[in-house]
């Protein structure tokens, strides 16, 4: 029943292309004045497509194990899709977030303009992400990884300011650089692995590999750094704080919560499904990886702490949070992986919430700097409450969700045989948790408790429209509730970890 896999990939892409082309033609024909008038057909089309494909995606991922081979790109290199536990997990998260942000985006984009183009790309990227998550071998993954870069770039430069374009190009080149490093790895692994298809536990051919360990390890390291670019890992992280803030809030929300996870997924696939964890366990690769991720964690939170612009601050926090996940993967223990996978989910919801809040602040009263937000809680308390819940979750205060994942990460670090790095890792995690508190909570504090009177606050509007508030609340709720009753998810993640180690 491959159709259910293909549908969520094909449908959004087709619809998105249709939207793009139609908007393009409209530009060709009509004058600037006519362009201002948005057409009503857009919203139903987009939502319908999204809902249908999301439904299909869920169906595909939660009804048993399926796979489909489209065609052969080259000899024994097929373009094929396959559903397994990891794919299902990622697909679910992505779909939920995408749907909610889709709702949120309509009112928001109405004052950004060029909605048709935006939603066109929005749909295309969704399709590409589905392809990425379902992809059944390394080449397919690489294909959709590249496509993801190319198609998500226009979302970054949406508002077309000079800065945005520069940021977009930066994003493009960093990702390309990463992709090509990964490609190098693929070239090498194609020789030393039995197959590039994903096999739990990896498929490295020990006979061939005999004596070529060095080049293989170099290849793996290259792939880690390469895919790490998307995940904002050192040393190639600099694009992230530049690119995410300039995008429109919904875009930066998905970029920062979902797109970065593309890198994570790729790394999971490479390490646990192609090479196999045992190959790199205890080698310099693992240590380098650990060190890099820990450095990123710490540096990210430090920079976030010093950052006055709200969205930029959130972007830096993304840098550090995603490296939590990478750290969890790098310790190569069941607990670590569990923690990592959990953190994938939680961070997706949390970071999305935070960015959407930032978006609302900008949308309602055009405030983008932290110090301008003093007393904001007085006029839009609901929004700020959602923000606060999310913040608590991110910091990892029980019972909020972040706590669970971090707990497992720490545990993973304990029972791995990586000596000092394990301890150091835990210390760094705690430190950066403190920093996280340091850069997130002040907004809540200043927002609610200010000595200014209500009338001397110069916020022109109050709470945002329901269409924007609702997704926010849902996400915040998810961020909390998953922390309160996490058992189901933990089992799921632990099961995955068990199968792939």
């Amino acid at each position, binding site marked *: 029943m491959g159709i259910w896999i293909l549908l969520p990939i094909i449908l959004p892409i087709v619809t998105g292309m249709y939207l793009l082309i139609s908007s*393009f033609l409209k*530009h*060709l024909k009509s004058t600037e004045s006519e362009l201002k008038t948005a057409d009503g057909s857009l919203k139903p089309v987009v939502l319908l497509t999204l809902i249908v494909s999301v439904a299909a995606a869920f169906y595909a991922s939660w009804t048993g194990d399926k796979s489909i081979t489209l*065609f*052969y*790109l*080259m*000899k024994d*290199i097929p373009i094929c899709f396959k559903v397994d536990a990891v794919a299902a997990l990622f697909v679910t998260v992505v779909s939920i977030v995408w749907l909610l942000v889709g709702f949120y985006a309509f009112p928001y984009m109405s004052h950004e303009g060029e909605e048709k183009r935006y939603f066109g790309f929005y749909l295309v990227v969704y399709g590409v992400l589905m392809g990425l998550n379902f992809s059944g071998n390394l*080449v397919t993954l*690489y*294909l959709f990884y*590249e*496509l993801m870069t*190319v198609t998500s770039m*226009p979302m970054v*430069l949406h*508002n*077309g*300011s*000079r800065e945005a*374009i520069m940021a*977009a*190009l930066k994003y*493009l*080149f960093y990702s*390309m*650089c990463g992709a*090509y*490093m990964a*490609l*190098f790895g693929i*070239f*090498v692994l*194609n*020789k030393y692995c039995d197959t590039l298809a994903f096999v739990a536990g990896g498929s490295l051919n020990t006979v061939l590999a005999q004596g070529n360990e060095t*080049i293989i390890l170099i290849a793996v390291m290259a792939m880690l750094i390469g895919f790490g670019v998307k995940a904002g890992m050192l040393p190639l992280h600099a694009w992230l704080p530049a690119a995410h803030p300039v995008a429109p809030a919904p875009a930066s929300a998905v970029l920062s919560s979902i797109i970065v996870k593309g890198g994570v997924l790729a790394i999971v696939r490479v390490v646990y499904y192609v090479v196999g964890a045992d190959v790199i366990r205890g080698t310099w690769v693992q240590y380098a990886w650990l060190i890099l991720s820990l450095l990123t964690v710490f540096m990210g939170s430090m920079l976030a702490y010093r950052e006055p612009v709200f969205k930029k601050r959130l972007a830096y926090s993304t840098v550090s949070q995603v490296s939590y996940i990478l750290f969890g993967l790098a310790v190569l223990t069941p607990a670590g992986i569990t923690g990592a996978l959990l953190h994938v989910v939680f961070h997706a919801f949390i970071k999305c919430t935070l960015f959407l809040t930032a978006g609302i602040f900008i949308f309602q009263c055009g405030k983008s700097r932290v110090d301008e937000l003093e007393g904001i809680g007085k006029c839009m308390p609901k929004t700020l409450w959602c923000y606060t819940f999310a913040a608590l979750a991110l910091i990892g205060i029980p019972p909020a969700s972040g706590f669970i994942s971090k707990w497992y990460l720490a545990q993973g670090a304990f029972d791995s045989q990586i000596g000092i790095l394990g301890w150091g890792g835990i210390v760094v995690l705690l430190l950066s948790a403190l920093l996280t508190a340091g850069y997130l909570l002040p907004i809540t504090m200043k927002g609610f408790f200010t000595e200014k009177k209500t009338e001397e606050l110069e916020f022109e509007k109050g709470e945002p429209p329901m269409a924007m508030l609702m997704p926010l609340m849902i996400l915040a709720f998810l961020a909390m509730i998953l922390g309160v009753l996490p058992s189901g998810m933990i089992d799921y993640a632990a099961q995955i970890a068990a199968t792939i180690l």
Partner: protein
Amino acid sequence: MNAIIMLVVVLLPILAGIPIPVLPFKNRKQLMCYVEGVTILTSVLVLVMLLNRPTDSLVLFQFTEEMILEFHLDGLGMVFAGMVAVLWPLAILYSFEYMKHEKHEEVFFMFYTITYGITLGVALSGDIVTMYVFFEMLSLVTLPLIMHTLTREAIHASRTYFYYMIGGAACAFMGMIFVLNYGGSAFVMGGTLDLAKAGENVNLLLVGYVMCFCGFGVKTAMWPCSSWLPKAGVAPTPVTALLHAVAVVKTGAFATMRVTYYTFGTEFLKGTWAQEFLMILIIFTIVYGCSRGVKETHLKRRLAWSTVSNLSYILFGVILMTPAGLVGALSHMIFHAAMKICLFFCAGAVIYKTGRNYVYELDGFGRKMPCVFTCFTLSGLALMGLPGMCGFISKWNLAQAAVESGTVLSYVGIVALLISALLTALYIMPVSVRAFFPGKGFDYEKISDVEDPNWMICVPLVLLVIVIFYFGLHSQPIIDAFAAVASGM
């Protein structure tokens, strides 16, 4: 009997081309029909020839008893001839529209048609002497095409071009002497060297090989002889597109393949200092070309620099000296042809419609020339090696070949390939981004004159893009064909 067809396809364009300036054409249309007719007829003949391949070779005459002119069609020749035969009519079609705003086009088309014949001659040549002769002729007949505009810089460019070509030819010639003395001149897969004859002076022989390779490599703009190619960008775009992205420069690549696989033989060369030395040169060229391309702001010159580096991809495949390497080289030879011609045609279309040459002048063109710039972007992505397009296939094959040969240098080569791919992104993407996203508040009234050119230019573009995607998604048959060639068909 059917060996004669080889002579026919070579002579037809030459003989039909020479009288063009004196033929009494009433108007452009007649000229156009004549030239297109000749070209298509030749291409058809070529395809017929490829379908029932003449097995025996055809001796024309002898210079001296060592130096014989003979035609023989083998797999490699078939690939090259096929490529040329497909691309030429497209280019002619394009150039009719393009050459409208150039002067004395009869002369142009005369040489353009002759070049076709001579390129086929290179493809069909059955031994190194014949190849050399046609090689020299090619440099000669393309000279007027470069200096066609007769501006000061065109003259200068054509001079530079010819000096490089003569130098390269002289070098190759000296290498050829070695071949003629140490074994047959004919092309046989695996080489014709008689090492017993060579005896102890193997190093001398290797020097000869290096001379030969570098000499023919000049046409493929191998460093340090690469600067003529961007200079030659002053020529009318059909020339830059077809000749300096495909016909002429790939003749050089073709010749190096001949020399390496069919004359000196890989098992003699593999692992010698010659291979390493050349490989270093080539790898350097790969990176050098791209980085110059990034620095260049003149669109055509930028593309020319990218050609420099991409040609060295082919040479890299050649110098790996494995069948897989040859496969990679051949695939990149074909695929790069499609991509680069498409890019050049787009650049040419811009020049033709607006006379704009520089990258920073292209803001917002994407909306005005959608067809052109969509094709530009797509072929650019292909050049960057996006999977699903043909650029990825050839990169993949090259890299696989390199991994298999597994020496340190070959891994360095892979890295160079990827670096240059990144640089490709660096010099292609900004153009597309400028064109499609000119930035906030860009008023399109400034470029209201800009619009898509007519079908004669657009059709070749679209066809080429289709080719790019087709080979990107369904490359197996052609790759198998190349493998057959590489295995000595």
